[in-house]
């Protein structure tokens, strides 16, 4: 899923200084799971903004709305009345959701309330780690399902680099596992260690043209 984290409160407060009626719009999918922009976070941010303005004696009216997925026009359309009511929108969705809102309501300023950071998974409660760089040319078949592009600090296709610490930790961050040690151990379990002898040519990063576009065969 897409991982995001909320922007600092001071930055969000500055974004809405000129407005007196603002909608805080959440997304109920990825950002809800990573505690950044779901219904609960919308409520908390809205309440904090009301309190902040009340402390400054500059009252503000904050509306709240959360849609299932803010990156889909049909779902965003459900809250068009609330958007119409507000002078500006703070979107707690990922960058894709913010842009969908901004495109649908061109006359309203739509501000991001979170920083979209990476594609990842929850490691434990409250901690998410990056798992995929969306490079467009998946390499996981050769590495036992461990992505060296994002999980190796150097993004090496032909690792390990030689700096692996004792216990299989990374030389750059001793807290992190060396991705190539993980790959070795995984391939060992699968009896596919011969793959470690392969040399892989530099990756073709042009596989994804920016902006990316995927057309389903039957659409």
């Amino acid at each position, binding site marked *: 899923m897409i991982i995001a984290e909320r922007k600092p409160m001071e930055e969000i407060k500055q974004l809405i200084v000129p407005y007196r009626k603002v909608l805080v719009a959440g997304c109920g999918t990825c950002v809800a799971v990573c505690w950044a922009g779901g219904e*609960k976070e919308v409520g908390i941010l809205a*309440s904090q903004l009301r309190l902040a303005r009340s402390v400054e004696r500059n009252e503000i009216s904050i509306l709240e709305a959360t849609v299932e997925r803010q990156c889909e026009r049909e779902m965003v359309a459900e809250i068009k009345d609330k958007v119409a009511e507000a002078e500006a929108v703070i979107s707690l969705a990922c960058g894709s959701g913010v842009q969908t809102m901004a495109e649908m309501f061109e006359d309203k300023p739509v501000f991001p309330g979170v920083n979209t950071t990476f594609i990842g998974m929850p490691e434990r409660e409250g901690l998410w780690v990056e798992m995929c760089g969306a490079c467009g040319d998946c390499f996981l078949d050769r590495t036992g399902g461990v992505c060296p592009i994002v999980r190796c600090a150097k993004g090496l296709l032909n690792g390990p680099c030689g700096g692996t610490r004792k216990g299989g930790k990374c030389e750059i961050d001793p807290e992190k596992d060396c991705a190539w040690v993980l790959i070795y151990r995984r391939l060992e379990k699968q009896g596919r260690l011969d793959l470690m002898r392969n040399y892989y040519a530099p990756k073709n990063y042009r596989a994804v043209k920016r902006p990316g576009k995927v057309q389903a065969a039957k659409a």
Partner: protein
Amino acid sequence: MRIMNGHIVAFCCEHSAYPAADSAGRLGLHYPENVRVIRVPCAGRVDLIHILKAFENGAAAVLVMGCEDGACHHITGNTRAKERVKYSEILLKEVNIDGGRVRMFNLSPNAPHKFVRAVNEMTRITKESGR
């Protein structure tokens, strides 16, 4: 409308703090009249949004009162509440509100004096900070 203007909102677990508050009343113990007791099934039921909403409605302070450590009727409700109270302090500081205005207290149902002490302490803190 600020329905809690200047009040201290005390979220009281129905297995500990609420009976303690009840006993305090029955024993005729005096505690400040600006306390508003809200009965909850467990301190763990109190979420961040409840604490923030209390302040939004004008509360001077919020108390979350649950069972003693290891004695929670719902096993981990009081420890969860403690974590949430800690986090709510950060959220309040972000908007320039003194984080000390939200506190967690643990007490047993037969401790009415402890309830009164906690409420008095919070009243003193809010008076000192000028609310």
